[in-house]
């Protein structure tokens, strides 16, 4: 046997490419869970974010509790809890559902913070101007505040999407069939961990890098267009720094 014994040896990569289907299927699971979790996170984040700018204290308190709860507990524990504890209460969720709910709830907290910071960055004068023109709170939000908010929170939201994609890898710990799980499984099964980790890392990169790049480009554009200042944008991104 004269071939290289290195963990990075080419023959190991060849072995992996022969099993490309395993990695493709796993990638599809990751993408599917990420998309559904993102939709959930945005829905939760939008509702809670808007509520958290309300003048009613009890409403604000509810969103605060939610945000603090999910920002200060590791996602792994949330996933383990749903996987191993909920069945004792008779709730048996599939691993894909756990991925969608766990990652969605978790990132929903971060999205809520982004939405809140975005709304708060809209100058107070605009609320007053709208009010003086006879706009109700609701129509002020719909016609004046939220459209502007959406523009300026898109970059930090995209950053959330990037983190969300990577965080779906929590499924690897509960045999979720995602890319990280199949990577570990294939690596251990074929005694070739290096190509598995390199290829899977590259696949995650391919998913995340375009998103991150687009977010940066868009951010530059809206700052140049004068729709938002760099300092405000920085401030909104900073609310998710605890991650």
């Amino acid at each position, binding site marked *: 046997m004269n071939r290289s014994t290195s963990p990075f040896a080419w023959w190991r990569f060849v072995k992996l490419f022969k099993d490309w289907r395993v990695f493709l299927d796993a990638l599809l699971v990751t993408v599917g869970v990420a998309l559904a979790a993102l939709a959930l996170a945005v829905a939760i984040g939008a509702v809670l974010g808007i509520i958290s700018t309300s003048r009613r204290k009890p409403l604000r308190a509810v969103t605060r509790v939610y945000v603090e709860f999910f920002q200060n507990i590791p996602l792994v524990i949330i996933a383990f809890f749903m996987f191993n504890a909920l069945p004792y209460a008779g709730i048996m969720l599939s691993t894909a559902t756990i991925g969608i709910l766990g990652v969605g709830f978790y990132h929903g907290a971060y999205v809520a913070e982004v939405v809140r910071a975005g709304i708060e960055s809209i100058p107070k004068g605009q609320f007053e101007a709208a009010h003086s023109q006879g706009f109700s709170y609701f129509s002020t939000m719909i016609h004046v505040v939220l459209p502007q908010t959406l523009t300026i929170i898109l970059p930090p939201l995209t950053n959330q999407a990037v983190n969300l994609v990577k965080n779906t890898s929590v499924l690897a710990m509960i*045999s979720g069939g995602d890319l990280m799980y199949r990577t*570990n499984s294939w690596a251990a*099964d074929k005694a070739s961990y290096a190509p598995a980790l390199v290829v899977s890392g590259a696949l995650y990169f391919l998913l995340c890098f375009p998103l991150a790049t687009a977010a940066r480009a868009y951010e530059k554009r809206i700052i140049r267009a004068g729709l938002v200042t760099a300092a405000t944008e920085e401030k909104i991104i900073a609310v998710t720094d605890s991650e």
Partner: protein
Amino acid sequence: MKKRILLLVLALAMVASAAALTACKKDEGDTADAVSSIRDRGVLNVGVKSDVPNFGLLNTETNEYVGMEIDLAKKLALEIFGDETKVKFTPVTAATRGPLLDTGDIDMVIATFTIKPERLESWNFSTPYYTDHVGILVKTDAGYKSLADLDGKSIGVAQAATSRDAIQAAADELGITVSFQEFASYPEIKAALDSKRVDAFSVDKSILSGYLDASVEILPDDFSPQDYGIATKLTNKELAAWVDDLVTTWLDDGTFAAWRANYPGI
């Protein structure tokens, strides 16, 4: 923008080639006398299980490892240093044992590591020091009597465990279908069995015996034999030969038999 992407691609290529180069270099220059290099270092580094009763289990009260494989590692240290305490144990999992061997962080793996063709391409294995069979652990109240009752059920296995192949082959023979869920460690599989996430827990019988409690039982079925060997870095043929020599000696002179007698579970 284009420039930035180009720079990034260049940086990535550099990292990749650096990794490949270091990996290649190590292949060429292993020491002439593997055992004396361990002696010079003053400690033998062994990768062991920390969660397998009777083989390698970390006693969390005393913070000491116990089990047959631990005795084996100590005996190897005794051979090298004349002192069985000069061994450092590193707990390993399916995901870490290979990299730790390849980088030289540990000298050998003695951790219920089954010899199979695919693995011989990556590491050296000694003569088997223990042969076990794959078994199945189920909840007693589920009423399963053999593998045949597990048609359509889900079986928890460890990552990289050969039990998956063994059970799949047996299931094919019976004409039943089973699905598998892989976990990184045995306690995680037991937790999944307890929460009924999986219907059965399958791994080598001796390992299963460590997870017996009032609510579970091991089915009588025996599946394909698993040979445990001591794994060393593929390029370090000398160390492999030295280890193999001792293993065969201790198999012949009853040393292993004496160890096994200390652990009634195996």
